[in-house]
């Protein structure tokens, strides 16, 4: 299969999503040590799990492209 570069704007968008997800994941993980409510903590952990998956997927996608 021919390796196809993304257009620059696609790479940028994916990259920005990666940054956003990374920060969300870090924040949600960190803040779990602060909350009192256990239901809220469960949701935060759910967010961490979702973000982990997103970050992996985005890294996978970004690894296929080289910014020109």
């Amino acid at each position, binding site marked *: 299969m021919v390796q196809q570069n993304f257009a620059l704007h696609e790479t940028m*968008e*994916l990259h920005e*999503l990666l940054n956003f997800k990374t920060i969300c994941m870090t924040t949600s993980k960190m*803040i779990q040590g602060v*909350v*009192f*409510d256990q239901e809220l903590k469960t*949701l935060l952990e759910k967010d961490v799990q979702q973000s982990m998956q997103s970050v992996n997927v985005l890294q996978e996608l970004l690894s296929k492209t080289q910014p020109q």
Partner: protein
Amino acid sequence: MDYERKPINALKKPMRNDYLEIANAEGMPGLVDSTIALNFLLNAKNGIRNCAMALTEIADPQSRTEVRNMLNASIDLHAQITELMMKKGWFHPYQVNEQFKLDKMSAQAALQIANLKLFPGDTSRLGTFATPNY
């Protein structure tokens, strides 16, 4: 966990020194959790917007599918956060008056906290970490 129903976002007394003051310890869990929940909700909202905006810029089919899955997951999570916040009395989408009152109290509490000297002095903490090159 049962919170004191009302008014969770108000400080009981003006804060003078720090959040550990006994007078304010009473409502503190609710204040902390509602603030964090709001932050979480806004993050989820921004995530949905970011995914949606990204979708309008991406042509690659595989990337679109992945981002769309992310968008759907974010929407579900946002709904769950909203539901939790409504259940706990932190969020009143159908009673705008109540919501405004709560937000004003939160703003006042936040102002008081912002005014405190919470971390006086040098906070660099270098020396407690291995940072030979700093």
